[in-house]
């Protein structure tokens, strides 16, 4: 390679590396602020601000869903398999909402440690399969959700 071409290539590579390093430092400084939601353990540990809009993400605890008769108000617990947080919500839940499902609730953290949500979103994982496969997995003791690699849900 001729010298002037090599110099140009080195300039480009060095420039790109410099920009990449700058962006990496910015993202590193932002750190957890880029996270879309807090996990229940982070909230229990006091990482989330009170009475400001926050999001909490986790799995819906089986048997924790409690609907108020005659209204759309309900409450349920979310967990990251370490701590759990109670979420209160009044409104329509997404179709994928069910016990054991990963969800994200947006709302305010109340002083008692509950979250009053104004919005509930369902997460889904990276597994795709036909219903028959899911059924037979369950039948033979490997339910579709058990082998989750998704660190956000299984933390």
């Amino acid at each position, binding site marked *: 390679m001729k010298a002037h071409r090599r110099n140009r290539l080195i300039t480009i590579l060095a*420039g790109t590396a410099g920009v990449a390093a700058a962006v990496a430092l910015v993202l590193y400084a932002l750190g957890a602020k880029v996270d*879309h939601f807090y996990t229940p353990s982070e909230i229990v540990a006091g990482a989330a601000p009170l009475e400001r809009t926050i999001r909490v993400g986790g799995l819906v605890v089986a048997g924790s869903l409690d609907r108020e008769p005659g209204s759309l108000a309900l409450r349920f617990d979310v967990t990251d398999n370490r701590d759990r947080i109670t979420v209160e919500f009044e409104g329509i839940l997404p179709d994928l909402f069910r016990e054991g499902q990963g969800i994200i609730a947006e709302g305010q953290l109340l002083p008692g440690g509950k979250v009053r949500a104004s919005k509930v*979103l369902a*997460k889904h*994982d990276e597994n*795709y*399969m036909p219903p*028959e496969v899911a059924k037979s997995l369950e039948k033979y003791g490997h339910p579709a959700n058990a082998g989750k690699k998704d660190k*956000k849900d299984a933390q």
Partner: protein
Amino acid sequence: MWLWFSRLGSPKWFYELAGRWLPWTWALTVLLFVAGSALALLFSPPDYQQGETVRIMYLHVPAAFLSMACYLTMAIASVIALVWRMKMAFAVARSCAPIGAAMTALALFTGAVWGKPIWGTWWEWDARLTSELVLLFLYLGYIALHESISEQSQADRAAAVLAIVGVVNLPIIHFSVDWWNTLHQGASISRLQKPAIDASMLWPLFTMLAAFFAFFAASLMSRVRNEILKREAASRWVKALVKA
């Protein structure tokens, strides 16, 4: 190898070669799209959780994949163009931009349509969605920068620098779902373990992916040919071509 490389740098040679290949590439594109659509819409099962909605995946995933592959092509062409001052590579980079912008817009749109029923929202400012939106702005910025400078070689060089700098966004898009908590789920195919998609859905997806790649190749060749005619308008062979 070097002969091939220097030939590739000749606009006339590329124009003629691409002209011969184009009909075949478009035919392959149509064939793959027909086969892929049939597999995706008729011969693949619904998902165990999402039901029929999962079929949006067969458009969304290839569009998102291409939006990044197209950007990588544009950036590599820009590096070659800047280092070797190759006119053809500038033409290729410039031709990638509108295709990539369209793919990114399609990925964002199908993602929104998919997100509404499954997540319960059209849009969330999570890391994956936001970085993909930044990719769209990079494409649009590249086109705007190129168009705003009237002198061809200056426009080419300025836009090439933007394309190369923007490459930093590609790993951010790809790893956003691993580095941060996001609404978007993790990778299903481009990971080291076995794909998390059942084979009955994986093959329709791969067919659609191949269709998108064939479309990319065909539309890129068409665009580069147009770009060559525009850029070489003063050369003798283009004048002869126009007269004929």
